[in-house]
């Protein structure tokens, strides 16, 4: 029979594990983000504030198997540049642990919303 103290200890351990998982996930996320930034060449018609939302599908090796445009910006050249930025990355580094991969990286969304353009 579990004492309340033991329950509390286990709950805290679970919390700690959760935080660590999120921290790990964040490290992967920022790596993915960096890869996409390095591959994203915006067309000259791109303007700050445009938004394109993509859905990215990976396999456990991290390879990009599909990219779809969920919500376009209204500027085809801009949307095309966003899709190309993900496709050019080809493969992302993802968690080796299956549960973590399935939870966050099997499919995820990328929102392209430039704020560093001149116009």
């Amino acid at each position, binding site marked *: 029979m579990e004492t309340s103290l033991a329950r509390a200890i286990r709950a805290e351990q679970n919390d700690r594990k959760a935080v660590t998982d999120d921290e790990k996930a964040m490290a992967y*996320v920022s790596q993915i983000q960096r890869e996409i930034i390095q591959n994203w060449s915006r067309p000259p*018609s791109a303007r700050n504030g445009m938004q394109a939302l993509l859905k990215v599908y990976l396999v456990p090796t991290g390879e990009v198997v599909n990219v779809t445009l969920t919500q376009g910006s209204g*500027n085809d050249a*801009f949307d095309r*540049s966003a899709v*190309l930025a993900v496709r050019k990355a080809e493969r992302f580094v993802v968690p080796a642990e299956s549960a973590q991969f399935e939870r966050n990286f099997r499919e*995820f969304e990328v*929102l392209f919303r430039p704020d*560093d353009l001149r116009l």
Partner: protein
Amino acid sequence: MKHSPYLLATALLGIVLLALPVQPTWADLRIEVTKGVDNAVRVAVVPFEWQGSGALAESISDIIDSDLMLSGRFESLPVSQMLSLPHKPEQVFNRDWRMLNVEYLVIGSVMAVADNRYRVSYSLYNVFKQAVELKQTIEGDAGELRDLAHFVSDSVFKLLTGIEGAFSTRIMYVTASGPLTNRIYRLHIADADGYRVETMLESKEPILSASWSRDGRYIAYVSFEVDSRPAIFLRDVVNGTRQQLTNFPGLNGAPAFSPDGKQLAIVLSKDGNPDIYTLNLDDRRLRRVTRHYGIDTEPSWSPDGKGIIFTSNRGGQPQIYQIQLADLSVERLTFEGDYNAKASVLPDGSGIVMVHRRDGIFHIAMLDLQRGRLTVLTETSLDESPSIAPNGSMLIYATQADGEGILAAVSVDGGVKFNLPSSEGDVREPAWSPQKRRMFKPLSD
């Protein structure tokens, strides 16, 4: 575009912190990307297959390649580095191009379909998506091979940049050659890539302020060909006829066609000092628009034709003003700097480009009329006469290199700059044609 590593790092940090989950697990992961690197698009223009006898007078694919390179938005792969030379999408072996980091391919063929008639079929292929983005077939005659190539360049450029291409347009400019004591001035019109130069006028006196009508049919300019006095002439580009429009005492200058092509804004000093007038081209009716003891000059129309912007020294220094033709109300547009001149309005009316002096150096600058922000686009000194491409994304201007006047272009976002292929002599006063030289209607497959 360059970012300092620090900026990038803080931006990343900001996003990552924002992305901190509220719940311990992320049901739906969304990554936000707010920065990019904006490298040139990597394109390979594969030599087109030629299906016909003898040699073709122009290489269509070479012209496309040179157009895309000239725009500054593309980086093309030299033919010598290509591992294969496909002409059809089904012949593309993706790995060849991924290895070379090529993003898009332009592939195609040219076929002789009748006497002097050629058919160009091409595809724009997306290497990373492994799909055809654009496929077209166009036809033209032997004299239109360069036009066919420019049409392809325009279509590719538009698809990949979201902006109308300007490769089929033309540029008018003035050259001066010969010794200083015996200068010969010539007014030329050439393709935007510098080829197919036609000389409109040759004179021992300067030729100034050449401007296009909106339909590209007429040009107006100032020359001193009659009695060595300045006069405004109108010339029909197609049939070569010419007429003198003004012969007033004093200054006759700076003609600019209204958007509907029915009027010219001009500068005359017949009533004292230089003021802006409009001249109806059909009945030659003259209307005085500005009436001020200051010098008003360099008129340019707003895209809707309802207003004229001009340079005036009425405030003590040259600044840009706008006058509404309906009520002749005047508004000052520029306040930054002690010298702003030669302004023209972007086709969408969102801003003006002009010559701007900063720290004693002349620049081409853009003033965003909505946000009131002024951006210096070029760092070259002695810049003059900015002229906007019909796509509104590039400016052409005259500048100096090695003591000679040359033409250069810059994008309105300042991101791309290049010099235009130079012809002989000192080159000045460029004006970008508002229309394409030739349009083609793609055949349906």
